[in-house]
C-alpha cells in the first residue's frame, strides 16, 4: 500500500504498478476457481456480486420476455432479498425448497425452468448447514432453455475445489473474507459471452463492467488469500476430521442432539447441530462467555438471532430454527480447542435445560 499507491487507471508509472498488482490478483483469484482472469470482476464482496449477477442478468433479459427467476429457499439473503426486490419490477420468482438433508433436488429446480426464465440461481455450498448442492447436475438439467445460471459460491470458494468449467454455469459470486482474505472485497466470475447489464455505471474500470476506482489493497489481499486457500485445500481432510471429532463427541455426550443436513455432502469446516429444548441464543452466549465463538443461522442487522430461514426451507420443525447452532472451524483450529468445546457443552446444556424446565414449571 505504501509503494503501490497509484491509481491503476492512471498512465504514469505508479498507476502501472498498481495495475500490475491488480492483474496478478486477478490471476490468483481466477486460478482458485479454474477460470480465465479476463472473466473475473472485482467487487465489494459477495453481496455486491450476487446483486450484480441477478440484477445484471435480469436487466439484460427481461426486455426479451424472460422474467422468471428460479432460486431456492436456502439461499443467502443477498440472493433472496435481491430476487424479492426484482418482483417489484415484474420478475416472477420461483423458490424451490430443499430436502431435510439440506440438498436441493436438481429435477425440482429444472421443472420450473422454461423459455421465459432469465436466471437460475442456486448456491454452491450453504452458509448455515454447509451442504454442497449438486450444481453440475442442476446446470445440466436447467440449461436447455437458455437461462443464465448463477451460483453463490461465497461459502465454497477456498474451502472445496471449485472449477467453473466442470460446473457448467455462467456466473459465480465469491467473497474474500470467507477464505481468510480482507473484508469488503469480493469477485464475480462472468463466463465470456454472458451479457450482464452493469449495475455500477461510471468509469471504464473492470472492462466497463463495474465503474469506480478499484479497492487495490483489498484486491491484492484477496489474491494472496486465494493462493493460500488453494494451497490449503490439501489440508481439508484434516479440518474435516477435527469437525467430525467435535460432532461425534457432542452427539455422544449431549442427549437430544442431531446434525442438520447431509453429513456426507458438506464443506469440511462446518457443522450445524440442534440441541433439543435449548434456546440457541442462550447457548451461544454461554459459549461466548467461555471464549468460544459459534453462531446460529445468520446474524441480522442488530446482531441478534433470527430463526433460521434455511432450516425452515429444509422443512425442519420450527423448534429447530430456534435451537440450532453452527460450529465453524478454521485452518488454525487445534485439537485442544475442539476438546475444550466438547468438554464444556454437556455442562452448559444441562444447566440451560434445567433452568428452562424450572421456568416452564413456574408458568
Amino acid at each position, binding site marked *: 500500500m505504501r509503494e503501490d499507491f497509484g491509481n491503476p487507471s492512471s498512465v504514469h508509472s505508479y498507476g502501472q504498478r498498481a495495475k500490475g498488482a491488480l492483474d496478478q490478483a486477478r490471476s490468483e483469484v481466477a486460478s482458485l476457481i479454474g477460470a480465465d482472469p479476463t472473466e473475473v470482476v472485482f467487487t465489494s464482496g459477495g453481496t455486491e456480486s450476487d446483486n450484480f449477477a441477478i440484477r445484471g442478468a435480469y436487466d439484460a433479459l427481461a426486455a426479451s420476455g424472460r422474467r422468471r427467476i428460479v432460486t431456492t429457499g436456502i439461499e443467502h439473503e443477498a440472493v433472496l432479498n435481491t430476487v424479492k426486490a426484482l418482483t417489484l419490477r415484474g420478475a416472477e420468482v420461483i423458490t424451490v425448497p430443499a430436502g431435510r438433508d439440506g440438498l436441493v433436488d436438481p429435477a425440482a429446480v429444472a421443472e420450473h425452468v422454461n423459455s421465459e426464465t432469465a436466471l437460475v440461481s442456486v448456491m454452491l455450498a450453504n452458509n448455515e448447514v454447509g451442504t454442497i448442492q449438486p450444481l453440475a447436475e442442476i446446470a445440466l438439467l436447467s440449461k436447455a432453455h437458455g437461462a443464465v445460471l448463477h451460483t453463490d459460491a461465497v461459502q465454497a470458494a477456498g474451502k472445496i475445489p471449485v472449477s467453473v468449467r466442470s460446473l457448467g454455469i455462467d456466473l459465480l459470486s465469491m467473497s474474500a473474507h470467507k477464505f481468510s482474505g480482507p473484508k469488503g472485497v469480493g469477485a464475480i466470475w462472468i463466463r465470456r459471452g454472458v451479457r450482464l447489464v452493469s449495475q455500477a455505471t461510471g468509469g471504464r474500470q473492470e472492462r466497463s463492467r463495474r465503474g469506480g476506482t478499484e479497492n487495490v489493497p483489498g484486491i491484492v489481499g484477496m489474491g494472496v488469500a486465494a493462493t493460500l486457500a488453494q494451497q490449503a485445500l490439501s489440508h481439508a481432510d484434516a479440518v474435516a476430521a477435527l469437525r467430525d471429532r467435535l460432532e461425534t463427541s457432542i452427539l455422544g455426550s449431549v442427549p437430544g442432539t442431531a446434525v442438520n443436513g447431509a453429513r456426507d455432502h458438506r464443506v469440511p469446516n462446518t457443522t450445524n447441530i440442534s440441541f433439543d429444548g435449548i*434456546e440457541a441464543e442462550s447457548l451461544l452466549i454461554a459459549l461466548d462467555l467461555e471464549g468460544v465463538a459459534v453462531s446460529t443461522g445468520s446474524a441480522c442487522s442488530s446482531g441478534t438471532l433470527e430463526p433460521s430461514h434455511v432450516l425452515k426451507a429444509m422443512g425442519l420443525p420450527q423448534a429447530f430454527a430456534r435451537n440450532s447452532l453452527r460450529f465453524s472451524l478454521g485452518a488454525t483450529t487445534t485439537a485442544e480447542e475442539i476438546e475444550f468445546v466438547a468438554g464444556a457443552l454437556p455442562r452448559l446444556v444441562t444447566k440451560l435445560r434445567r433452568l428452562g424446565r424450572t421456568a416452564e414449571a413456574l408458568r
Partner: protein
Amino acid sequence: MRVVVAMSGGVDSSVAAGLLAEAGHDVIGLSMQLYDQRAKPEAFGSCCSLDDLHDARRVAAALGFPHYILNFQEQFRAAVVDHFVAEYAAGRTPIPCVQCNADLKFSTLAERAQGFDAAAVATGHYARVVFDEDRRRYRLLRSVDADKDQTYFLFSLTQDQLAHAMFPVGHLTKSDVRHHAARLGLAVADKPDSHEICFIPDGDTAGFVDRQLPADDRSGEIVDSGGAVLGRHRGIHRLTVGQRKGLGLATGTPMYVLKLEPVESRVIVGPREELGGRHLTATRVNWIAGAPPDAPQHLTVRIRHRHQDAPAVVTPDGTDRAAVTFIDPQMAITPGQAVVFYDGTDVIGGGWIDTASA
C-alpha cells in the same frame, strides 16, 4: 459478582451498567430486540429500536464488557402487545411497561441471566431496593429523584425478583445520571428521554389498536349518565376515561368519557365534575412483603404514572384483590391502569384497576 444489565440504549441503563462496571462487577449487557427490525424500519420505537440497540453495543464496547442482543420478538408480542390490544378492546386503558418489566425483564431476561451465572439483573429504573434485616425481606422504595420515580412500573416484583434486582441509578437524580454519563464518556449522555409507548412511536394508539383488531364494526352509542343518546363513536378501543377530544359531540359544556361499557359497546360521557371518583377495586394485586396486610391500611395511592399519590384506605380482599377508598375524589380513575400503594417511600403493593365508582 456477575451482573446482567438490561440495556435499552438510553442514558439511564447505560449509566447503570457503567457504575456497576466501575464498581468492579463482572457486567454482561443484554438488550432485547422486541420487534422485527427488518420488516418495517419506520416502526422503530423510541426505546429498543435498532439505533438504540447499537447505542447499547457502543456503550458496552466503550466500557469494555460483553453485550448481547436477545431476540424477544415472540415473547414481547405475546406478553405485551397482544395484551395491550385486548385491554383496549375490552374498554380498559393498559400500561404496557409494567408487563414488559414483569414478564420480560424480570422473568424471561432474569431466567436467561441465571443461565450465564449472573447473580443479579440490573436495570436503569429510578427505584431502590433494600434488604430489611429485621424482617428478613426486601423493600421496594421510591427513587431519590421524586420526579423520576418509576416504582409505579415495578409494583409487581416478587420477593424473589427483588432479591436479584439492582437499580444502580435509583439513588441519583437525572442530572447526576447525565453527569456520570459525561464523566464516563458515554455517547448517550445527551440522548433525550423517551416518553411514548415504544411500539407506537407515532403516538397514534387508536390507529395501532385498529390495525391489530379484526375489521369488525365496533361503533356504538355515546350517552350521558341519564342514558340520553348524544352521538355515536367508532369503537370503545379508541377511547379512554377522561378523554375529551375526538368524541365529535356538539354540546354546550365540554363532555368527558366517564365509562366504557364493552358488552353494549357504549360510552358514557359527562361534564368534568362527574369525572371524580373515590372508589376503585384492584385485581391481580401483588404485595411487596409477599402477603397482604391483615387489616385495612391508611396509605397513599397512585392511579397513573403522572398522578400525585393521594391518601386512601386500602382494604385487602383475599390474597390478590383490594378495595381502595380515597379521602378526596380523584379525577378519571381508569380501569386497566395500574394502582400502586405507598407508605411514605415504601411501595406496599399494587394491582390493576378493575372497577371505578363515585
